[in-house]
């Protein structure tokens, strides 16, 4: 398609673009002819909706048409004169490369073609509708900044740059997607970043063969080290403050145009449990919340398995009153405990998925059906036992405690549950050991996923299980000290 080059005449060029975009009415051609200078005629090409029409008419067309040549300067071309002193737009580029021209046109820039020139002046007129910066939906916080990334790469970069005002902050741009030509930006702090990780990331990005890159989620999957695990080894966040913190600790952020989720690598297991708010609230409270999250995650994956083990295999491990009350509650419940547990878990997942997908206006129906019909009524009708509803309730709530770990939690839970349903507590313990082994074997960009987990050194736990107070952090030493640690293992 881009075999052809620009022609020296306007009409031929217009015909060229009409051939490239047949029947596309959003491609707008604005021919103009200067009232006094006969040689100044041309055409302005842009795509409707991608450009700011105000820029187009006020700062390009008007100056050109009102241009009064005070003295005839023949030795400079008209194009050069326009560039030098007439067009009042800061971003200007002269190009004869058809591919470049097309990319810019499609990315919301306008093309100015002049009669007699086979080059196009690319004018920066990008101006499309974007979502305003608003509170991130997936990571709300009570205190701390309320800004979240948007779908616009430029806005996102500005959000990061506003937080790290340093010349050390570097951006590297590249384009991914054979069809979509999506801009991807690597962002890092020059003297914190581990060069090895940066090179590895660049290598992996280069190797990518993909037609369409629509969201950073795709990259998240394509960049990971291990393909067969529900645990993420590439992180994502919607919060600029979180990204700023992470790149200051030596991580690399990957921004994808069109996605409000920014990826960070390397991503360690403990980062699932670190929330921006921990760093802004009282450190006792922050540490407490973090421990709650760890406990919650343990409960989320193991409560159904433990319950099934207790009720069907290891009854002697229960206190007697509990045994008796569970036994009483289970009278005349039709399904065996294991089947009951599977059914209820799947029902809960259905409710969760329905709740996520459902339009807000009818969202209440889900909670009514969930709470009343499936909870209360099912227990009253003795279709499920009351303890099972409690178990599912705890599981559901604790899963939502670490939303980012949702996928991993669900799969781990079903794995542990099936082991427990065959072998009781023995199976549960076996599953837990297997889980730890699996986590220990994971790596994120060469960094062990469970880095320093299991260490009791003060320097290793200062930002994992707890958060140490800020007055305990030395100037120049980022709190997580991830830089030092990550560097050590990638050396």
């Amino acid at each position, binding site marked *: 398609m881009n075999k052809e080059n620009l022609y020296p005449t306007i009409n031929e060029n217009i015909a060229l673009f009409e051939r490239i975009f047949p029947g596309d009415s959003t491609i707008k051609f604005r021919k103009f002819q200067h009232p006094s200078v006969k040689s100044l005629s041309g055409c302005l090409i842009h795509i409707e909706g991608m450009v700011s029409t105000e820029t187009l008419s006020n700062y390009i067309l008007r100056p050109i048409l009102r241009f009064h040549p005070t003295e005839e300067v023949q030795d400079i071309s008209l194009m050069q004169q326009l560039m030098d002193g007439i067009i009042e737009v800061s971003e200007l580029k002269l190009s004869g490369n058809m591919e470049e021209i097309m990319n810019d046109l499609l990315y919301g820039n306008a093309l100015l073609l002049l009669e007699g020139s086979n080059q196009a002046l690319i004018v920066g007129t990008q101006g499309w509708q974007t979502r305003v910066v608003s509170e991130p939906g997936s990571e709300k916080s009570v205190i701390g900044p309320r800004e979240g990334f948007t779908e616009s790469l430029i806005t996102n970069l500005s959000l990061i740059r506003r937080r790290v005002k340093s010349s050390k902050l570097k951006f590297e741009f590249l384009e991914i997607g054979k069809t979509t030509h999506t801009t991807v930006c690597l962002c890092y702090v020059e003297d914190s970043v581990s060069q090895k990780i940066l090179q590895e990331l660049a290598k992996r990005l280069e190797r990518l063969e993909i037609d369409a890159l629509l969201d950073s989620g795709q990259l998240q999957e394509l960049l990971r080290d291990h393909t067969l695990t529900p645990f993420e080894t590439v992180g994502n966040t919607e919060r600029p403050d979180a990204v700023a913190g992470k790149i200051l600790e030596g991580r690399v952020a990957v921004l994808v145009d069109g996605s409000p989720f920014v990826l960070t690598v390397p991503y360690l297991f403990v980062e699932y449990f670190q929330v921006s708010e921990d760093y802004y609230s009282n450190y006792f409270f922050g540490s407490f919340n973090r421990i709650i999250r760890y406990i919650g995650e343990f409960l989320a994956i193991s409560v159904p398995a433990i319950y099934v083990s207790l*009720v*069907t*295999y*290891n*009854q*002697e491990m229960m206190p*007697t009153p509990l*045994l*008796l*009350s*569970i*036994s*009483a*509650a*289970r*009278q*005349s*419940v039709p399904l*065996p*405990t294991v089947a009951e547990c599977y059914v209820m878990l799947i029902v809960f997942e259905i409710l969760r998925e329905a709740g996520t997908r459902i339009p807000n206006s009818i969202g209440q129906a889900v909670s009514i059906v969930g709470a009343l019909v499936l909870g209360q009524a099912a227990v*009253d009708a003795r279709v499920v036992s009351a303890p099972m509803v409690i178990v599912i309730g705890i599981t559901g709530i604790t899963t939502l405690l670490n939303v980012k770990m949702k996928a991993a939690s669900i799969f781990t839970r079903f794995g542990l549950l099936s*082991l427990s349903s*065959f*072998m*009781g*507590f*023995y*199976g549960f313990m*076996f599953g837990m050991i297997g889980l730890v082994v699996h986590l220990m074997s994971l790596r994120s960009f060469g960094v062990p996923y469970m880095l320093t987990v299991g260490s009791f050194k003060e320097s290793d736990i200062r930002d994992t299980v707890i958060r140490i107070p800020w007055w305990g952090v030395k100037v120049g030493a980022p709190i997580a000290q991830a830089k030092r640690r990550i560097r050590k293992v990638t050396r």
Partner: protein
Amino acid sequence: MCSLTIFVLSGCWNYREVDKMTTVAGIAIDKGEKEGEIRLTVEVVDGLGGKDAMSIGSSRISLSGHTMFEIVRRMITESGNRLYWAHAKSIILSEEIARDGAAKVIDWYVRDSETRSDIHILVSGEETAEEVLSSKSNSDEPFSYKIDEILKNENSVSNSPVMEIFDFADTINTPGISSILPMVYSSENKGKKTASIHGLAVFDIDKMLGTMDANKTKFALFLRDEIKGGILTLGGYNRLPGISLEIFKNKTKVEPVLVDGQIEIRVKTHTVTAVDEAQEDVDYYTSKGRAEIESMAEEMVVEEMEKAIEIAQKRYKQDIFGFGSRIHKKFPKEWKTLEPDWDEKFSRLKVSVQAKVEIKGTASTKKSINTEDENY
């Protein structure tokens, strides 16, 4: 390979639903009607699953047979489910069975893998063990669980020993200490049948010889160093000094000594108490008065302990205090000569007893309610 071992090596693979099993709360063992039979009564928990009231009742199943395990298996035909033993709390032996040898009947319980050996074991003070278990208490709670509760709080009364089945099996096998078991009676309190646990049964190896009453038991426990609480009563209602001492702490030292080639036992107790009741206006608030009360209490403790020793030595010839094992530890050589005929030797053992009672405080009032003051 790994996944194979999970299945092969897993010990507890029994899948059973909690509502499909019959939970045993307690066991009573009697002699059967026919000669050579035993009669087993189990109290099982009835989980009456209702929506609101999850009331828990109990029912009983009785069967006779030749061996324990045979009866236990045959009980399935009565209950419909296999019995589940891990939550049983007490075994009651009838006196007849105990006098005949307890080891025979508890062997299955200690040996089997579905049972737990931390179950309490008691001897029935009534004619049969079944009778005690059948005394339907007013509350819905299974009777055996009530016994468990009583024994759990026993250490603030110190009226009976607390024995779990493995303790009992252990002391049967250990020379130098004779077994004792608590006695359980079915008593009636205001028309409500309930269990009452007091006193102890003395065993020669595994054969019961006789009993001791609650008060003697307390001082036997002093000698065994098993006192964790309880009350020392001095005098009583209208009898001076009318004081109750609450035992906070007690330490009993049993020391075998060699005197002229003969082994003697010296017992020293140290008891920390507080005045928790003073019915009469006795001087317990000056140090002199306290010392008096202390020496009264000491005298009483010594006297009672000597009585307990006398019963053990003269009536039963059983070393229920474990003096033999103390000698074994301290004088292993001499013990070798004593061991073969220990029961006889024990009955002639010289035991001297010393007691020290210390009054730490007077609870939350300083003086007794002074009736005379009001006249002024």
